[in-house]
């Protein structure tokens, strides 16, 4: 037995997405990889990876699927992530190590599952309480699981009780937010996977909708998203809101009376994001779902000291296009907030090229499934509601001229293909001309060689084409400028909040304004352009200096 000193325990991954599904069988593991078939355009595909079947006794068996099954007889398989417990330890004679917590490590530490390990879980759905500012309209569940308990535990959520407040979810009619299971570690391996690791699995709920007895049949707006259908012109279709078995909520809470934009509720934006919105007076039907955010904790007691670890899962809808990746992901968002800008040196240039290439591939993957014609049409109309007159005569235009020949030289490609830009008219044989053009344009960049050549030759064009992100606080002037800055946008500058053809075109950011890359992505791309230009300029010189992100403009 080794002499081991425990320094820390932690879960991996530290955060994860779980995804709803009503099948009893979770989705198997798969990874992203490159498709190099002749006609594949080097797109991303998914490939099965080693997956785990949970035996009735709670232990695992590994296997490698040949295919990925997303549904079982029409029921969607949930994404139920595993979380592994790891430890930072000092092993006598070997030094400090990061290792998974296994049965062997527990033995080395002189502790056991049943006496020294607890798993705790706290899951909650606070959507309704956020709207109505009433904690009794939240609902949540807490669990404590002993280290030798390997059953699946149901997260039965109820609303907290407070004097003089009506609980939304009754104690005798809880809502399941999913299950937590401490996997039974067993000695041995299966397909080279160590089955003696301590793992916790969270299985999300089934995607059910709940309401009160009043949530029976409801009228819905047949209008476009965000458009209000007044009672006076009701031409609505009717649908069941909540199945009879799920009409279990308290009908006497503020959630059943909520109306958006009343000015009393600090409405989160967009405010019309609940059943009942945009029809008549937008009175809420009082419905909730079974999504949640869950925090899992491990407590390992060693020699009278408690070591704790935590991890977090967010329950999302299914990813219906699992081989198409967002170019602005949640990971990118966190990196943008917390990580330093990328510095490009001769040593990191190749990695940066791969990162930039991957960014362009992700853009291509998104454009494959985006109806750009429809979003362009919609957001140009949004623009024209806010700015009926185009006061900016030079490209890129904010109105119907956007992404047409009027936007030349910016719209070099679309200007040649699309003469009038009236998306309502068929353009030759293409029914979705902007969509097709976008896929065509970005398809070329799936070749690394082509992309690098393009960036080297057309760096100025790329700088013009990419919409700058909103500036950092350091960049923003104390008083807003009269018009846009070429390197960053300012939320106080009206023109910076209007859509145009710059990339990414006609998409929305988190504040409903035109989407850009993250600041970090943008800086990386712009710095890489400079690096490539220096590389070209210094082709015959012997040394290159590192390229760091351009210093941000002082106010």
């Amino acid at each position: 037995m080794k002499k081991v000193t425990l320094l820390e325990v932690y879960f991996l991954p530290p955060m994860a997405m779980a995804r709803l599904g009503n099948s009893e069988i979770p989705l198997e593991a798969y990874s992203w990889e490159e498709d190099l078939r002749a006609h594949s355009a080097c797109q991303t595909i998914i490939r099965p990876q080693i997956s785990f079947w949970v035996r009735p006794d709670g232990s695992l068996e590994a296997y490698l699927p040949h295919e990925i099954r997303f549904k079982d007889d029409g029921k969607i398989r949930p994404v139920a992530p595993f979380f592994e417990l790891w430890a930072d330890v000092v092993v006598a004679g070997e030094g400090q190590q990061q290792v998974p917590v296994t049965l062997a490590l527990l033995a080395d530490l002189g502790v056991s599952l049943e006496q020294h390990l607890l798993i705790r879980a706290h899951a909650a759905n606070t959507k309704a309480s956020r709207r109505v500012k009433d904690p009794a309209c939240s609902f949540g569940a807490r669990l404590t699981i002993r280290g030798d308990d390997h059953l699946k535990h149901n997260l039965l959520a109820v609303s907290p009780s407070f004097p003089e407040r009506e609980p939304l979810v009754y104690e005798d009619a809880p809502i399941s937010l999913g299950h937590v299971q401490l996997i039974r570690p067993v000695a041995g391996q299966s397909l080279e996977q160590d089955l003696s690791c301590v793992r916790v699995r969270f299985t999300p709920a089934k995607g059910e909708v709940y309401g009160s007895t009043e949530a029976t049949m409801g009228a819905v707006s047949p209008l476009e998203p965000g458009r209000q259908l007044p009672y006076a012109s009701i031409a609505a279709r009717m649908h069941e809101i909540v199945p009879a078995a799920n009409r279990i909520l308290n009908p006497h809470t503020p959630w059943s009376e909520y109306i958006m934009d009343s000015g009393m509720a600090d409405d989160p934006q967009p405010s019309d994001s609940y059943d009942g919105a945009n029809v008549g007076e937008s009175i809420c039907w009082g419905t909730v779902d079974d999504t949640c955010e869950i925090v899992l904790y491990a407590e390992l007691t060693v020699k009278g000291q408690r070591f704790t670890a935590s991890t977090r899962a967010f329950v999302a809808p299914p990813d219906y296009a699992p081989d198409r990746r967002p170019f602005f992901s949640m990971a990118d968002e966190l990196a943008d907030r917390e990580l330093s800008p990328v510095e490009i040196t001769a040593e990191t240039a190749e990695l940066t090229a791969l990162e930039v290439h991957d960014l362009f591939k992700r853009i291509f993957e998104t454009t494959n499934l985006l109806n750009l014609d429809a979003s362009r049409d919609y957001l140009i109309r949004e623009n024209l509601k806010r700015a009926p007159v185009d006061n900016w005569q030079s490209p890129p235009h904010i109105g119907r001229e956007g992404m047409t020949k009027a936007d030349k030289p910016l719209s070099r490609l679309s200007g040649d293909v699309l003469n009038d830009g009236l998306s309502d008219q068929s353009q030759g044989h293409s029914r979705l001309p902007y969509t097709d053009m976008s896929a065509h344009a970005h398809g070329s960049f799936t070749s690394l060689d082509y992309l690098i050549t393009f960036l080297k030759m057309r760096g100025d064009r790329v700088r013009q084409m990419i919409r700058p992100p909103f500036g950092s606080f350091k960049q923003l002037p104390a008083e807003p400028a009269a018009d846009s800055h070429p390197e960053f946008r300012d939320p106080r500058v009206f023109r910076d909040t209007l859509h145009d053809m710059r990339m990414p075109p006609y998409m929305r950011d988190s504040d409903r304004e035109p989407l850009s890359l993250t600041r970090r992505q943008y800086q990386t791309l712009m710095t890489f352009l400079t690096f490539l230009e220096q590389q070209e300029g210094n082709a015959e010189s012997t040394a290159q200096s590192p390229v760091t992100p351009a210093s941000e403009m002082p106010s």
Partner: protein
Amino acid sequence: MMSEQPKIFPRNLTARLAYQAAGNPVSSRLEDEVGNCFPGLGIDIRNLDRRFFPGLVFNFAGREHRELDPEIPNLYGARLVSVEDECDADLHQSNPMAIALLAVFHSPQGRELRQGEWFIDTLEQAGKTIALYDRNSKGERIPMDGMAVWRIVRSLSPGHVGLTLMRRDLTEADGQHPTITLNGWRRQFVDPKTGTLNEVYQPGELVQSLCSPWQHDMRDCACMYWASNRPDIVFAEVPAKTEEELLESEDANLRLDWLRSDREATGRVFAPNSYRKLRQYQMDNHEINKRWTELNFALESREISETYTPPERDAQDPDETDQDLN
């Protein structure tokens, strides 16, 4: 032979997020979740900023129709929801700035903050101060809308932040609203060592502003940014087994509206080019609460029924094979 092109880049990930746990599909990773969220499908990351300043919790109160002047401008901006100095682990006593901040929270000024309607009035970082005001259509100064305030808060870098709070529901004898200035810092949202989200965020807090139910947004958000998880358009499923059969298929290039209500053969028509034209043929709100499981997964941009079999890997490079044999 498969490419060496990586799909995961640890340099661009916060601590420990690069780890791939065995048994998990890649759709459990944060790289698979759309980051720009209005409000998002799985996480509304804007909720991080409601606790950007240790000890304080804000709501970013915005309005739906920002193109119109607000009837009551004072309702909008970053409203102080609560002072939570007692349960904020970032305010530990080993940090001199935390000690100073706690002293304010525990002072008469701190007690004042716990009553009335306080909003952020100005933000300061690195010697620069930005006042959170806007102009209405008459050119009059009005409080900035909550979403624009959020954007400016989001622009802060880690490090010192000064903020001035103004109480809007009280006017003093001199006609001015009371103000309180605090000095603190922009919170670190992700622990740089463990990679976990700061534990000040309560379970449910990062998803509290998502749609209720989630299906409502799946249907009714003018999304324009979720296509990688929730497609706008997809190619129709065809019964081809090989690429050649696919190319010969009549429907190979038929591009469908993914959210169409008619899932039968009669619904297999080209997606129109505007939301106005496609809306009436899509699933409705309420309807989607029950029918979301009928929506197809799309692989390689094409709808599938229930399973996906990836293409065979190409034969190994002959040179590599030779090396293996040597």
